């Protein structure tokens, strides 16, 4: 910065501070106006801190919830699939003990089969690291089998005496989902 421009800036500073002093003098002539001035500054800084807080909240919520690694996403879908099979097993066991009617068993198993299909598609859409390809394939196979069994019951229904056997088979498939 050359000397001339520094001098110009100095004059500008002086002029500005003189203008600011004048403004302050005008403002301070009335107590109400002065208070309003201070209030406005406080409000502006409060608004700034509120917007900072909201921005931080947004960033935190996005980062803590995380974009999710393959591992966490896959775990989520596997837990979901396992829960769906557990629900099907529960329904079939109650069907065996006579607690569920045929329409309820059919409609609810049909819904579980649809849900399993969605879960399977979500799991299939993930890109697994090389080390987990095998595990994902076996999980998908087990889930697909469970889905077709549930779908078949949803379509045709099931006799109470056959329900327990099917429940046992599905429990085996549920274990396969969990096996690493």
């Amino acid at each position, binding site marked *: 910065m050359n000397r001339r421009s520094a001098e110009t800036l100095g004059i500008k500073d002086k002029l500005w501070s003189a203008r600011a002093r004048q403004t302050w003098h005008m403002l301070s002539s009335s107590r109400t106006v002065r208070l309003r001035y201070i209030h406005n500054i406080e409000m502006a800084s409060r608004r700034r801190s509120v917007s900072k807080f909201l921005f931080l909240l*947004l960033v935190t919520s996005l980062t*803590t*919830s995380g974009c999710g690694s393959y591992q*966490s996403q896959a775990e989520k879908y596997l837990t979901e699939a*396992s829960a769906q099979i*557990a629900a099907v097993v529960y329904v079939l066991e109650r069907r065996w003990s006579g*607690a569920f*009617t045929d329409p309820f068993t*059919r409609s*609810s198993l049909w819904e579980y089969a649809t849900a399993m299909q969605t879960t399977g598609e979500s799991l299939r859409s993930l890109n697994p690291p090389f080390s987990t390809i095998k595990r994902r394939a076996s999980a998908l196979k087990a889930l697909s089998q469970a889905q077709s069994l549930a779908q078949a019951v949803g379509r045709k229904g099931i006799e109470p005496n056959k329900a327990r056997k099917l429940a046992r088979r599905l429990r085996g498939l549920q274990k396969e989902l969990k096996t690493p």
Partner: protein
Amino acid sequence: MKNYLSIALGILTAIGGYVDVGAIATAGEAGSKFGFGLLWAMVLGTICIIFLIEMVGRLSAMGDKAYADILREKFGFKFALLPLSADAIATFLIMAANIGGASFALYLITGISFQIWTVAVGFALWLLLWRGSFSLIETGTSLLGLVALCFLVAAFVLGTPWNKAATEIVLPSIVGRGGPAEYFNIAAGIFGAVISPYLLYFYSSGGQEEGWTRSMVRTNRVIAIVGMGFGAVAAISIVLVCAVALQPLGIQVDQLQTAGLGLVAAFGIWGVYLFAATLFVCCFGAAAESVLGFSFEVTQIMGWKYNVNKKPRDSAIFNLIFSLYIIVGILLVALAGIDPLELTIFATGFTAFMLPVVVGPFLAVMNDPMYLKDQTNGWVSNIAVLLIIMLAFILSITSIPLMIVGEG
């Protein structure tokens, strides 16, 4: 005597109105995934809705205008369009989800196509609103809504550890079958389901329809506290039943029918029927209340005639609005085949997102002596409103990202 009757009816209204498809889905999901860890959200949401319901009720009792009417008068037509447009979407989603929920209950019991039931339920709903009086709609659906208390009985039958549940309300744990994102997503969903804007418009307009006067101010307070408290008991019982019966078995409530499995554990075969009855009655009642609430809101903001008790030709636009809404709702659920549970998730998420628009004006309206005379908000109510508005803003910012990440 009339006041006592109003209290009883108000309590019943609250029970019927509180538990809907959103409450059943989110409470079931919360209990089955996080045990008692999300009871705090239910309790906090209930406290918020108690304050809001008390305020809109007081507003109705002190003047001759409902909340939506006052919004237009105080803030102008352009401002009133903001909550109106937000509610138009939220209420439509809620109504369609509830029609879907009621149809799903019939589908579970009969096995007959869900789509067919959607058309039948939609038609029955339209007929009730077209022909029925306000008191029939209110008391009929609410009395039947008492069936939701079967979840409370089930919670006792299943041997809920009450001490543990009470402790977790104060000191909640995030331990469960899901990450923090899912935990907070469900919490946001609970707030979205409990603090439903349609309840405010429905309750406020109901006060006008029933001709409330200043003498109802205290009664209104009792209705808000006891009624919403009872409603919360029913919803909390769903959390408890799912936590006790389903969580240990690794079953998650990702499907509507799964919430009923807890009742089966308690009542055997009757559990299926009780669940279907609860789902049907609560969803049907909520669909009626939501679409009526919206019709009230539109007509009040636009300055048109509204009255459920009048013949359709005397309040034509009012009747036209709910008729159109029901028809489009049926088309969405039956023809487009949209899953009611997915709709519910979107509805609760969207409601959480738009909450500031609905609760924001409360602070100004409830402190205006022009509408409330000597019954303006005290410091407790004002602090409560401020906290609710803050909570609404936090929910609004976080609900959509949480919904995207939490739902995967």
